[in-house]
């Protein structure tokens, strides 16, 4: 492919029908992945919106058109991990005294313990490990399907699954017993 052709391809935006088709095909994969990683439906919607908004606003790399599913899935994992990791870096704001103290009813702030366990454990894994784990155990993809989607060998998938399973179980065990912190 000539340089000109490559440049043109790299700056291509999806057409409206293409965009809608992409959204219909992959939005659930992105949303469910984001739900699992972030543990929050609101954050998952945020991730979904961010990723598809980028498609509208930015040029997409060549590899997007070759394998949109891979691109969108990896984006879902990475953006979701960014969300939870930035959340972990947060601290309580310095001065709350300037907010009104309402007398309204209280609502539970924290999600249920299970979600917190999962989110904490996932936040400690590498993006690649999270990608493989979720494809295998949440989206029920087979190892050859994972290898094809992520562009890696089947052997690598098997080895990473084995290691990540051990690590995840260890992290989940720690979280459940409160040792994880």
């Amino acid at each position, binding site marked *: 492919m000539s340089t000109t052709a490559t440049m*043109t391809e790299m*700056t*291509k*935006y*999806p*057409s*409206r029908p293409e*965009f*809608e088709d992409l*959204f219909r095909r992959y*939005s*659930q994969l992105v*949303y469910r992945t984001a*739900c*699992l990683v972030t543990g929050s*439906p*609101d954050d*998952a*919607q*945020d991730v*979904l*919106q*961010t990723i*598809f*908004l980028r498609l*509208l*606003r930015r040029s997409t790399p060549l590899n997007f058109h070759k394998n949109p599913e891979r691109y969108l899935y990896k984006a879902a994992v990475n953006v979701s991990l960014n969300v939870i990791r*930035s959340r972990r*870096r*947060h*601290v*309580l*704001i*310095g*001065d*709350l005294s*300037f*907010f*009104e*103290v*309402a*007398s*309204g009813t*209280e*609502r*539970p*702030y*924290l999600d249920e313990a*299970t*979600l917190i366990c*999962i*989110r904490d454990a996932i936040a400690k894994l590498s993006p690649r490990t999270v990608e493989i*784990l*979720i494809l295998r*155990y*949440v989206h029920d993809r087979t190892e050859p399907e994972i290898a094809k989607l992520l562009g890696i060998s089947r052997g690598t998938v098997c080895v990473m699954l084995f290691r990540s*399973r051990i690590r*995840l*179980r260890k992290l*989940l065990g720690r979280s459940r017993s409160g040792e994880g912190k």
Partner: protein
Amino acid sequence: MKPEEDISTFLKKALPSPEQTESACEQVLERLRSESVSGLDIHNDDVFSGPRNTSWIPAAAIVAAGIVFLLVSVAVLRDFRSGADRTLAVVEGRIGGPIQSDQIVRSKDRAMVLALTEGSRIEMRPNSKLTLQRAVDGIRIRLGSGGVIVSAAKQQADRHLYVLTKDVIVSVVGTVFLVNAEEEGSRVAVIQGEVRVQQGASVKRLLPGEQVATGSSLEALPVAQEISWSRSAAVHMALLQQGTSAAAERAKTAAPTHLEFAAVSIKPHSGLSTNGVEPIGFVCHGIDGSRRAAVEFVGSAGPISAPQGRCVGNGVQLQALVAFAYGIPDRDVSGVPDWAVPPTRVGTLGPPANAFQIDAVAEDTSSATADQLRQMVQAMLADRFKLRIHRETKGTTGYALIVAKNGPKPKLKETSDAEEIPTLEFSNGLPTLRGKSTMDRLAQWLSGRIGAGSTIGAPVVDKTGLTRAYDYEFVPVGRGGGGGRGGPGQVGQPGPPTPADRAANISALLEDQLGLRLENEKAIPVDVVVIDRAEKPSEN
């Protein structure tokens, strides 16, 4: 159970149901389709069709040159493609031709008239420039320069016609009005009906014959003079006369209601040390909720409270009372007499000085609203404190609330529910801020002009361009290491946080969670109250 099944079961606990997934995806798709999220017109093919084609420039030049002899030219300054579905208006008269979304329309040395497809008409003064845009809830007319007279057709439910200049947003549902955009500011006047004019944090409603100018150097001109250039000036004048006489009639028949408390008790505060035991503040409890003074200290038994239909204050000072009564932050009250200035405190919380204990009750405690009680406080100040004030508008620096680069986040949900000004609720020691309002109201709350709490401590104007009401909530936690100086638990940091610290914190929160942020804004016009006279009240 196999280990794999165990992990799979565990992970899948965090997944939403297929119905929830589908619903969430549909919501996001709708937002992506809407202009309010993307800032792009998703219905506009150029968003998707690759790099922008700039070959229109010579074509536009040729078109413009070709129609110069008609004295009025319609210059299309952005990419355009024909299509009846994108036509928002047509130019009336000999020149004709469709006007599409985002086209820039210029009138040269003669007035021109645009007929919008939804029935409204826009008369453009000579040498004016505007753009029509299709919004989610109607049509926006962005007036760049010059002037327009808009005869707005009756809009369908939930549809609005907006005129935007660099500093005001005018919204209508069916009326005739004019807008002029000048270098120094904007001027809006109403010929028939009623319009809502939003300038930064302030919103005004104008009736026939009334006008508002945003720049201090803009002189008020008679509306009749302002419309003299129009070909329909005689028709507009007749409408104006009808409208002004009807308004005068209404003003005559509407008897002014003077709201006063049935009984008021005011005593100097005892001056006993509070030491955090005694709540300090002022609150009015109406049938529609409580309204609190901006600054209060929560005592060991909680914040100060009032029975329904009453206003109760403890350790409250004149400046706070005036600010409460006129719905402005304490910082916007000036001219406080010496006897009412609190002495500078040394050390931590001391006894409130030059302060009062107040207990006031409305005549009908079962019907008084919080706003009526606030008006009764004004009457109480005039009666017991002999308060005389005047209002001024001053320009000051502050912040603009804008949409962050990736657009509003999903937590900002459109709503048609009744307004709920933002409030902070605590749960498990962590705060969550919730509200249902327009972004203008959120900006007012952030600046401390509504609700309680000084929030940022500086004026904030809404420049999000989001005109609908939203349901939102966010958790006020800030980024580690950024801002938050001097807050609880941050030992060794000097002094309380400055407005800039607060704005930085809030901006980060807003961007992370709602897709909004704050940026510095110069010369925000702020209405202030100046105390001309106030006396120490006699005790009763």
